[in-house]
């Protein structure tokens, strides 16, 4: 007879209460409730509500390398125009941080919650300005070689990549090494209104346009961009949101060809985009996207009529304790 001991070389623990530090796959017997339990990973792939932004906004910068529980959002548009508010997220609520030196929207951000850069942005048709965040204050950084407005970015504060421009066609990409900017390989298709994921040397760009909206996907190997055969199921741009890595990304929101915000969410496995059955609760474009394919954050954006303060948290996999029924 097959036994648990025979399979795993361990006996099932006999405990009066559930253990506190449980590993996925761990099995134990709870003698108090007289139940056999197992810890397992459950794929949820759903969006749940997060804390509301203090300042509703769109075309704000969300840290591409930030995490779902340690994110930073700054700048953006409100009804009154560009604004300077900066906020950080702790997984539950947003807290105001020192504001940008001046109001700016369509700025792109990369790095972490405590070490970030913001590049380009208003006024139109864009600037080469760079702002640096050290976790407690903003200061002026080294300007890029080209002016950008609504660009994309990936990487860290000392190894970044900024590419594309709403005012195009502009396929220029620039690398940042912590000291200076260097032009690198150009995109095959203009990055207007697209989203991205990855790092300075392994990036991904998807969607874009405005209109017609695009479904394209391109990858960057640190030197050049390659158009990939895998395309989004829902063409969208202006601007969708994304996060993750080059081979494990998430695309969500954006506008369709009629400039209608979509809730559609798609999962990238390195070669194919798969539509998730459910999407964002608040369809939106031009918001912030942070985190990973399994733990993402959507913040702010435009919902067809106005800027929103809604934040949504994406959960790909959740560890859950299940009671095993034995017959």
């Amino acid at each position, binding site marked *: 007879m097959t036994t648990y001991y025979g399979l795993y070389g361990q006996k099932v623990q006999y405990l009066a209460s559930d253990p506190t530090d449980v590993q996925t796959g761990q099995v134990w017997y709870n003698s108090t409730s007289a139940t056999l339990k197992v810890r397992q990973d459950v794929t949820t792939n*759903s*969006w*749940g509500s997060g804390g509301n932004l203090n300042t509703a906004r769109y075309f704000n910068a969300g840290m591409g390398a930030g995490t779902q529980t340690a994110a930073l959002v700054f700048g953006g*548009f409100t009804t009154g125009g560009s604004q300077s508010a900066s906020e950080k997220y702790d997984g539950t609520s947003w807290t105001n941080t020192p504001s940008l030196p001046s109001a700016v929207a*369509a700025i792109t951000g990369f790095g972490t919650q405590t070490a970030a850069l913001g590049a380009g942005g208003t006024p139109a048709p864009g600037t080469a300005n760079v702002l640096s965040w050290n976790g407690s204050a903003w200061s002026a950084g080294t300007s890029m070689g080209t002016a950008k407005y609504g660009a994309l970015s990936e990487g860290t504060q000392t190894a970044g990549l900024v590419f594309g421009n709403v*005012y195009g066609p502009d396929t220029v990409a620039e690398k940042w090494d912590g000291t200076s900017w260097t032009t690198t390989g150009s995109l095959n298709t203009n990055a207007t209104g697209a989203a991205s994921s990855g790092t300075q040397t392994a990036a991904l760009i998807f969607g874009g346009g405005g209109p017609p909206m695009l479904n394209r996907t391109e990858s960057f190997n640190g030197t050049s961009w390659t158009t990939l055969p895998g395309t989004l199921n829902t063409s969208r741009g202006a601007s969708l949101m994304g996060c993750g890595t080059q081979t494990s990304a998430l695309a969500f929101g954006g506008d369709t060809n009629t400039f209608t915000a979509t809730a559609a969410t798609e999962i990238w496995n390195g070669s194919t985009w798969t539509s998730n059955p459910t999407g964002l609760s608040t*369809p939106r474009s031009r918001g912030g996207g942070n985190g990973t394919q399994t733990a993402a954050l959507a913040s702010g954006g435009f919902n*067809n*009529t106005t800027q929103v303060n809604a934040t*949504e948290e994406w959960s790909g996999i959740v560890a859950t304790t299940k009671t095993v029924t034995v017959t």
Partner: protein
Amino acid sequence: MAYKYCVAECWGKGFITHDDASKYQVSGFPGNVWQIPANNQDANLWVNKVAGSFKTKAEAQAIVDVEVTAAQAAWDALPDEQKQQPFNRQRPTAIVLE
């Protein structure tokens, strides 16, 4: 699919949980209007959880229309230079609830 509508203010974390979202789709519209599947018991219980006020489709559509009209008026009042900025935003279009 048939839908129901309610009005509820999103308070933030926990308003829609992953457990909620894994069972049914909640879709938000301007004016704090939320759409849920009509014949889903869990979704109907969610409306109670968030202290939502059920609306008929016509009532919900009217609330959305007010928001869209106000947004269109605000956009019309913008200076031309702001209207012409790419992706700043477009003139809001009508939203028709399903």
